[in-house]
C-alpha cells in the first residue's frame, strides 16, 4: 500500500471525528445518567483502555447494543462493537445466576416446555412474579413469554416435514428459540407462506440458540460455542446452495455480524445466504419470480416498528415494502425509536424503569396512531410493545400469511 492511503483501527474507532452525533441517538443516554454514552464508552474510552485496561468502566454494561449509534455515525465507526468488545476483553464482573437463566433461552425452553401449562401458570402468578422480583431481580412488571406445549420442531416433524418433499425449490429455516419454545405459530405461518410461494422449507441439522442473550450477559465462552456450532450447521446448508431464512432480526443480525465482529467466528461460509424471510420474499416478488394474491376481505390498520437490529441491518425496506403491497392495509411506518427491551435487558429489575423510559416515545406514537396491529420483526420488541401498549404485535410474515389468499397464491407459484 501507499503510505497513509487509508487508516485502519479496531471497529474503525479512529474514524471518530468527535462530532457527538452518536450521543444524540443513543436511547440510553437520556434515560440513564450512569451510562457514559456511546462516544465516551466507545471511541474515546478505547484510547484510554489501550493505554491501560484499568480504564475499563463496568458501566458499559448499560449499553443496549442496539447499534443506533452505528447507524447514526457519519464516520462509519462501529461504536457499539467497540463497547461490546471492550466488555468481552476487560469486564471482570461475572454473570449472576439470574443473568445466566435469562441468557440460556434454549436450555430454559427445553426444560420448561414439557411443563408449559404449569410453568406458564406459575410464572404468570403475581406471587411468582414477586418472588422472582425479590430473589432473582427479574422485574415484577414483566410478563414472562409463555412456553408452548409443543415445540415448533416437534410440530414440523409430525405435520409438515413430509409435505415439503413435493417442492423442487427449498429454503432452510433458522427458527430460533422463540419460535421453537414460545411461539410456534410464527414458524407455522412461515411454512404456510413459503409453501404458497412455491418453496419447500427444511429445518437445519440441529440449530442452537444464536447466543445473543449470552453475549449481552457476558457469557462469551458459551456464545462462542454456539457460534461455532451454528457456523457448521448454517455453512452446511449454505454449501448446498440453500438460502437460510429467519423470522427474527436479532438472531439474523447476531449470526450475520456479531459472530464475525465480536466473537471472531469466521462466518463467511454462510453469511451471504442468511437473510430475513421478508427480504427473500420481496426480492422474489420484485423480480417477478413470485406472485402474490391478496384476500379481498383483509382489512387492517397496521403500524410498523423498525427493531434496532433491523435498522442496523438496513433491511426494513423489505418488510415494509411487502406490507405496503397489502391492498387492505392502512399502513404507517413508526419513527425509528428503540422500544427499550433490548432482549434480556428490560427483564432485569435494575433496568425496568430505564427500559420503559427508553420506549416511551414509541409507545406514545403508537397510542396516537392507534393501529389495530403493530408489525415488527423482533420477538423481544413484541413482548415490550404488547406489555406497554396492550396492542397485538405480529411478525410481517404472519400478517402476510393472513392477508394473502394462500390457495390462490399457491396456484400461481408452482415452480417447475
Amino acid at each position: 500500500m501507499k503510505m497513509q492511503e487509508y487508516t485502519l483501527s479496531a471497529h474503525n474507532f479512529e474514524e471518530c471525528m468527535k462530532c457527538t452525533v452518536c450521543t444524540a441517538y443513543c436511547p440510553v443516554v437520556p434515560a440513564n445518567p450512569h451510562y457514559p454514552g456511546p462516544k465516551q464508552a466507545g471511541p474515546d474510552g478505547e484510547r484510554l483502555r489501550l493505554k491501560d485496561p484499568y480504564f475499563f468502566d463496568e458501566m458499559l454494561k448499560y449499553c443496549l447494543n442496539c447499534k443506533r449509534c452505528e447507524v447514526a455515525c457519519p464516520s462509519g465507526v462501529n461504536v457499539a462493537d467497540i463497547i461490546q468488545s471492550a466488555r468481552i476483553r476487560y469486564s471482570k464482573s461475572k454473570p449472576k445466576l439470574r443473568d445466566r437463566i435469562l441468557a440460556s433461552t434454549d436450555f430454559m425452553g427445553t426444560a420448561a416446555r414439557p411443563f408449559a401449562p404449569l410453568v406458564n401458570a406459575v410464572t404468570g402468578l403475581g406471587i411468582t412474579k414477586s418472588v422472582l422480583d425479590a430473589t432473582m431481580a427479574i422485574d415484577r412488571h414483566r410478563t414472562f413469554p409463555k412456553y408452548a406445549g409443543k415445540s415448533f420442531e416437534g410440530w414440523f416433524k409430525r405435520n409438515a416435514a413430509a409435505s415439503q418433499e413435493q417442492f423442487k425449490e427449498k429454503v432452510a429455516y433458522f427458527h430460533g428459540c422463540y419460535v421453537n419454545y414460545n411461539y410456534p405459530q410464527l414458524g407455522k405461518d412461515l411454512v404456510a407462506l413459503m409453501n404458497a410461494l412455491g418453496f419447500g422449507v427444511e429445518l437445519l441439522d440441529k440449530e442452537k440458540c444464536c447466543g445473543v442473550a449470552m453475549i449481552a450477559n457476558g457469557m462469551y465462552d458459551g456464545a462462542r460455542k454456539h457460534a461455532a456450532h451454528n457456523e457448521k450447521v448454517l455453512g452446511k446448508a449454505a454449501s448446498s446452495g440453500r438460502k437460510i431464512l429467519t423470522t427474527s432480526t436479532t438472531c439474523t443480525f447476531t449470526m450475520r455480524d456479531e459472530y464475525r465482529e465480536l466473537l471472531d467466528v469466521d462466518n463467511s461460509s454462510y453469511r451471504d445466504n442468511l437473510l430475513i424471510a421478508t427480504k427473500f420474499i420481496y426480492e422474489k416478488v420484485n423480480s417477478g419470480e413470485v406472485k402474490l394474491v391478496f384476500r379481498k376481505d383483509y382489512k387492517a390498520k397496521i403500524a410498523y416498528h423498525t427493531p434496532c437490529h433491523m435498522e442496523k441491518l438496513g433491511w426494513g425496506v423489505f418488510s415494509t415494502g411487502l406490507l405496503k403491497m397489502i391492498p387492505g392495509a392502512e399502513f404507517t411506518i413508526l419513527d425509528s425509536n428503540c422500544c427499550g427491551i433490548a432482549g434480556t435487558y428490560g427483564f432485569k429489575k435494575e433496568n425496568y424503569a430505564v427500559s420503559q423510559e427508553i420506549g416511551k416515545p414509541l409507545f406514545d406514537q403508537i397510542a396516537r396512531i392507534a393501529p389495530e396491529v403493530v408489525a415488527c420483526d423482533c420477538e423481544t420488541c413484541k413482548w415490550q410493545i404488547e406489555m406497554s401498549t396492550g396492542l397485538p404485535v405480529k411478525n410481517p410474515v404472519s400478517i402476510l400469511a393472513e392477508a394473502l389468499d394462500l390457495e390462490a397464491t399457491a396456484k400461481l407459484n408452482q415452480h417447475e
Partner: protein
Amino acid sequence: MKFDTVIIGGGLAGLTAGLRLQQKGKSVAIVSAGQNALHFSSGTFGVLNEGAEIPENHPYMKLNLEGYLAEVIPFFASAGVVLKGNPLKNSWRITPMGKRQEARFFMEDADPLEGKDTLIGKKALVVSFPGFLDFNTSFLAASLEKSGTAVRIELLALPEMDRLRENPSEMRSVNVARVMDRAWNKVVSEVKLLLKGEDVIVLPQVFGLKDSAIVSAIRESFDQKVLFVGTMPPSVPGMRTQMKLKQSFEAAGGTFLMGDEVLSAEISSERVVSVKTRNLGDHALEADAFILASGSYFSKGLSATTEEVFEPLFGLDVNFSEGRSSWYDADFYSAQPFNNFGVMTDEKFRALKEGKPVLNLYAAGSVLGGADALRLGCGAGVAILSGLAVADAIAPESK
C-alpha cells in the same frame, strides 16, 4: 430495487433534491451513510457573504440564483420547516461567541437581525444552566457588551436537569433539549422572575428538538424580544430541520436508507446503471438518474491521501492543486485552499470523469468544487440551490 432516482447522501443537498423529486412524482431512494452536517448547523442558512464575488467555477454560475432563492422559503414550508429572512438580502445572527455573522435564511429559533447594530443600546438578560459548558455565556456577554449592549447573565438551576448532570459528558444541547421538552414552561416562569427591566432575553438553542411549537410558545410568553443563540454541536434546530425534511421525504413516498453506504457503482456507456450498498449486498439499487450528494471531507464525499484529493466512489474529476503544501494556509482563520476543492461538473451539474460528463450522474452540495463555504458563506446555499437545480435537471416537468 428500481427507483427513478437514487441519491447518495442524506444531508441538506440530498434531502432537498430527494424531496423535490418526490414532490414531482418521482420515486426516490436516498442512501445515507449516517447522519449529516445539519447536526452542526448554526441554525441559519448562508447563501453568500455580502460583497463576496462569485468565482467563475462556482456552482451558482450554473443556476438561476435569484429564481431559486425565491423558492427556498416555500419549498421548506412544504416540508414543515419555517424559514425566515429576506431571500435576496443578508441579515445578521448572533453567534455563540457573540459575533455578528451574515446569513440569509433563519430557522425558527434563530433570529434575523436587520442590522449589525440592532442590539446596540438594549439591555439583555442571557440565561443558561449551571454546568452547561457548550453555551458559553461569558463570551457571548462580553462580545455583546463590547458592541454596546448591556448584559446580565443568570444561570437557572432547575431540578429537572439534575439527573442529566450526573453524567459528566452528556450535558449536551440535544440532551438539555430533551429535558426542556418537559421543563420549558418552568424556564419561562423562572426567567420572568429574573427579569430586571431587560428588553431582550437570550436563550440557548435547546428548545423544541422535535417540534418548534415550543419555540413559538416561549416567544409568545414574553413581551420582550427572545433571542435564541446557538450552542456547540449537536445543533437542536439543525437536527429538527433534518428530521422534518426526512419525514416529509418519506411521507411523500421516498425511501430513506439510513446508516447504509454505497460501496460500488456499475457504469456502462457513460451512464450509471446501478449502485450496491453495504447492507443490501448483491441487491443493487437501479435508477434512471443518480445524484452524488455525499458531502465534503468530513462526510467522506471527498478524500485525501498524501498526494491527491479524490472522489472515492466514482473516481470523478476533482479540482485539487498539486503538492499537499499548496492545500493549506498556516493560519487557521484564513481561507484554506482545500475548501475550494471538489467534484467538477458540466453546466447541468453532471459530474465529470476524465473530462467527460457521466450522463445521468449529477453532483450537488458540498461535494462540488469551486465553493469555499467558509470564505464565501455559501455552504447551505450551495446545498439547497444545487439540490433544487439538480432535481429540476432530472425532472424538468413541473408537478
